[in-house]
């Protein structure tokens, strides 16, 4: 395997990793937002009783 092919392979792997880091980070942020909202809804329920 020549040097250019090795760098190409590393770039492809890095590109796929970056894609998943961006997508999963966003998914995790959505999950945290959802959890915070559920807590807020529970707090409102407690206050309204």
């Amino acid at each position, binding site marked *: 395997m020549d040097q250019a092919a090795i760098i190409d392979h590393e770039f492809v792997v890095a*590109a796929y990793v970056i894609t998943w880091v*961006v*997508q999963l980070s966003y998914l995790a942020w*959505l999950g945290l937002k*959802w959890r915070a*909202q559920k807590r807020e*809804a529970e707090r*409102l329920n407690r206050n*309204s009783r």
Partner: protein
Amino acid sequence: MKKLAIALYVAAVIVLMIWGFYQAMYVAPNDAMQGEIFRIIYYHVPSAAVAFVFFAVNLIGSIGYLAARRNHHDRAQTFDAWALAGAEVGVVFCTVTLLLGSMWGRRAWGIWWTWDARLTTTLVLWLIYVSYLLLRRFAAGPQMQTLAAVLGIFGALDVPIVYMSNRWWRTQHPAPVFGGAPGSGMAPSMLHPFLWNMLAWFAWGVMILYLRYAVERHRQKIAAREADAALHETSSI
């Protein structure tokens, strides 16, 4: 029943993503000219396509919000939630498109960035929707949703310009692989992995889009309850 359908859909998305990755990395052959770096296409182009579709969701949501805001409050809020979800998830996919395009450009052209027509119009598109999200985040008051809807409609005008940019202006970015000049297209050995990844990323995108929509609807309901509670407190004083 709804929970089961969602669980099945998520399972199908995970299987599709694994299958798409396998197709892109192990089944598709290297490109004769570019070698292995060409495999970026299996994530780069589907990300761009999903971003375009979700910006169209934002457009429909924005128009729907403007049409319904005076007489159908709940329907308008639903449209607004779809508009926000479309813009935000679209920005995530557009970010991936720009990052992967830059990496591909570094290997193919020797540069990370150039002010080529396709790259520039895509960056402008990304900036428009980032400003849409910033407007929603930092503007306050009842006019915020209306202003955001108008910005969303104007932002969508850039989508066809981005799509046509490498047909209208021949600069650095390659000519379209699909629907381009006669002879354009992909060999079947590359086309199948490409279509699997297109399907997988659309399925993933729809899942994320629906989740973002659900979070926003939940937030709207909490905000409405808080406003009601504040009104009752004020009236009891």
